[in-house]
């Protein structure tokens, strides 16, 4: 199984395994199985991590997302942009053990499947693309094929005409599919020639047989290295006088197959192609020459010959670079690797807990440890611990390599320090101290591909990142803050959690937060009347807050107020200040004030202004009921019972 399902986080990003590091993200990526597009996976994000390459679909991330483990990847290849074909990176799976000639099997399978493949645009019947890889097997498996093959004049790629193509009825108006590799349309004359030569005898086609793969490869590379225009001039056939194409800018008559004006360089869109592009609003790129597979549902159990990632908005180079790095480093091998050996200069004295465990596991008892007891022993242990910490830190900071190697230890140490730090009041402050745990969770600008939409990609990634951070159950940031927290606080906590590197600007942060709604993430940004922005769970509504507040105020009918009051607290309860609310629900004062005012505006609460400050009460003013009704809906019996409980201190 080459394809693996991806587990996604709440923010619809791949869930990283322990030790897995996110290396690169790029949007507008399409996935190919073999040489055919997988129809449901044509617009999504590619995530490269130290262990995997993931495709996460934009429209239906939960359904159409796959991952490929890098350890299953045998080799990878990079195709530069070639005329209309987007740059691609191919990943070849490792041959499955046991099968003698896996590649052959694969080719046969793909040939069979190829019968079901059709060209993506139904309007233009097209040649079934053939690649140099399955060329031989295809020929052997179907020797009597009657389809017409034409050789592209630009890139020498052999293309097949659809079986429906009829040379006798073909005219200038017959739409011809472009070359499957370079996307340049053949001239009609060329096709007809090829058709005639095929018809007159298969021998005629022999001389124009495709060059072997290495030759084609080198040809491609030279092609892409040459500048497009010169290349075209060199290899294009003499201009077809009948259908020259006028440049919209300088009116120069260009050859129809030129993508840019020869004279002024303005981009040309051939007339019939223009219509197709305008029809297709969803994909804003020139028509892709690649064929799509139709009527073929994606199957995880399929073992493709190879897969391709097509980078429609750039980012291919960096992806390739990082992929190269990841394949070299092979982090997945380290998953269960023993800790890095280190100089053990202080044998009996400075073993840290890891060493102790190791040693005890080895069966070697710690040497003199057990002998010293009492205060001296405690002191000795403290000393040992400090010594050891010193060693770890010294080793770690000696050079960067060493730091990377001992990263685990350093993180563990940092966590310890964080825990030892003096108890601070706010939970948010604790979260700050746990910054070390967050080392792996960064989305940074340099991790993202450069594309036209690079800014939006960054923001959306950041947005997901923050949402993940917020909803992470282990940290429980939002929960600790009473389910609501101001955006400014979050920004501070988040930036601190990044450990002081790659800090996020407030504007970016706000923009990212505003994207939550659009990205369907489980948190939402809410703006209070006075402009305060707060972050809340997606499903947390004002009604819930009000219910929470009212519950609390109801309680105050039962428990007597701390100091003596003049009104009947049994009837009205008592007023609460924003401070009290903040304390009770774990909100910040600003949030508490806003929530109370929100409830007031809603009519659930009303205010009492006095020299002691602003207090909020249950709203008895709008209550139309008259003196008949005494207090609340609790029946007197329950009330009496609860009151007894309160008196006994059991409540």
């Amino acid at each position: 199984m080459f394809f693996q399902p991806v587990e996604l986080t709440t923010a619809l990003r791949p869930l990283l395994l322990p030790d897995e590091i996110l290396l690169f993200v790029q949007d507008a990526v399409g996935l190919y199985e073999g040489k055919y597009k997988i129809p449901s996976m044509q617009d999504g994000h590619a995530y490269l991590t130290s262990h995997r390459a993931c495709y996460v679909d934009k429209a239906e991330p939960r359904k159409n997302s796959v991952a490929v483990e890098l350890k299953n990847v045998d080799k990878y290849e990079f195709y530069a942009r070639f005329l209309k074909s987007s740059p691609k990176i191919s990943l070849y799976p490792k041959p499955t053990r046991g099968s003698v000639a896996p590649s052959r099997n694969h080719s046969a399978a793909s040939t069979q499947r190829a019968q079901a493949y059709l060209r993506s645009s139904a309007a233009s019947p097209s040649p079934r693309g053939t690649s140099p890889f399955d060329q031989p097997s295809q020929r052997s498996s179907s020797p009597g094929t009657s389809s017409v093959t034409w050789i592209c004049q630009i890139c020498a790629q052999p293309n097949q005409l659809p079986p429906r193509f009829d040379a006798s009825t073909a005219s200038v108006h017959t739409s011809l599919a472009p070359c499957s590799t370079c996307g340049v349309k053949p001239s009609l004359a060329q096709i007809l020639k090829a058709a005639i030569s095929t018809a007159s005898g298969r021998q005629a086609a022999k001389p124009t047989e495709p060059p072997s793969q290495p030759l084609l490869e080198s040809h491609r590379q030279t092609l892409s290295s040459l500048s497009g225009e010169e290349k075209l001039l060199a290899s294009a056939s003499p201009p077809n006088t009948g259908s020259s194409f006028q440049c919209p800018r300088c009116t120069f008559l260009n050859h129809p197959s030129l993508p840019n004006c020869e004279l002024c360089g303005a981009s040309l869109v051939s007339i019939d192609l223009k219509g197709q592009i305008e029809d297709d609003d969803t994909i804003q790129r020139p028509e892709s020459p690649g064929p799509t597979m139709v009527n073929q549902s994606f199957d995880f159990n399929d073992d493709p010959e190879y897969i391709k990632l097509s980078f429609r908005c750039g980012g291919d180079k960096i992806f390739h670079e990082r992929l190269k790095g990841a394949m070299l480093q092979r982090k997945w091998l380290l998953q269960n690797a023993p800790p890095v050996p280190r100089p053990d200069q202080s044998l009996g004295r400075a073993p840290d807990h890891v060493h102790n465990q190791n040693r005890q596991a080895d069966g070697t008892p710690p040497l003199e440890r057990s002998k010293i007891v009492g205060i001296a022993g405690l002191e000795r242990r403290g000393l040992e611990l400090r010594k050891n910490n010193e060693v770890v830190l010294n080793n770690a900071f000696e050079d960067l390599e060493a730091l990377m190697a001992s990263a685990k230890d350093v993180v563990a140490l940092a966590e310890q320090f964080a825990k030892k730090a003096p108890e601070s009041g706010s939970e948010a402050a604790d979260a700050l101290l746990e910054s070390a745990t967050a080392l792996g969770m960064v989305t940074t600008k340099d991790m993202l591909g450069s594309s036209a939409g690079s800014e939006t990609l960054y923001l959306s990634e950041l947005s997901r990142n923050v949402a993940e951070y917020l909803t992470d159950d282990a940290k429980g940031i939002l929960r600790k803050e009473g389910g609501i927290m101001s955006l400014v606080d979050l920004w501070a906590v988040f930036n601190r959690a990044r450990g002081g590197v790659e800090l996020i600007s407030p504007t970016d942060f706000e923009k990212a937060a505003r994207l939550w709604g659009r990205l369907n993430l489980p948190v939402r940004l809410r703006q209070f009347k006075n402009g305060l922005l707060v972050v809340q769970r997606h499903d947390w509504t004002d009604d819930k807050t009000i219910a929470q507040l009212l519950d609390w105020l109801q309680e105050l009918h039962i428990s007597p107020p701390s100091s003596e009051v003049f009104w009947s607290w049994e009837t009205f309860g008592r007023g609460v200040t924003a401070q009290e609310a903040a304390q009770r629900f774990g909100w910040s004062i600003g949030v508490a004030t806003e929530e109370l005012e929100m409830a007031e505006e809603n009519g659930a609460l009303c205010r009492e202004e006095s020299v002691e400050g602003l207090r909020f009460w249950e709203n008895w003013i709008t209550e139309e009921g008259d003196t008949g009704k005494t207090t609340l809906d609790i029946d007197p019996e329950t009330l009496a019972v609860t009151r007894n409980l309160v008196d006994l201190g059991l409540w």
Partner: protein
Amino acid sequence: MSSKSPAPRPAFDPSGPRPAPPPSALPSTFNFPREYAYPPFYSLQPTLLTRSAQLRKWSALIQSYCRFHRIYRLSLIDAVDTPLFHNASIKKRLRLEDVRVVVTWMAGEEGGWRAEWVDGGGVGKGKIDGGGAVWVWWRRPEEWADVIAAWVEETGQRGVVLTLWELSQGAGSKGQEFHGMDPEVLQRSLNVLVKRGKAQIFGEEDEQGVKFF
């Protein structure tokens, strides 16, 4: 006066006049509504809905209070220290500015014209220097006119000439709601009857008489 059952507070229905309860039925002390002991009642609410409910309740309280104590004219600066606006037991009071707001509201359409500034409509509104005195119309002049007309009808005094003093202070009107009425309010109420053509006022300044038809 005998205090019958601890009757509910005299809820005042501002929608129209109703027959006066016999004086003996009035409890000896004024029963304040529940909100009177509710601290937020003394702070004007910023929320629209709550605020209008609050003003309505204050208006009802002022009217029933004035009715109970037979107050026709309220001097705000003096009234703020009376139990009406000052609840000593919970140490809360409605501030003078807020009293003005309430009275202004009462004097408007929303409040049903249940108050009127003594020195001309709306003039007292801007005044801060304590000049404001108001008529509290727990019964508007038109309503008083109806009450008086009904009484005249009942007692068969049609065509009889009565002095204003007789009407408000005389033994004949004793026990009636308008007994002891403020002369100015009486004057205005009778003017309403005159306009309706049901009475005629004649006589000099102090010796005014009225004849009902």
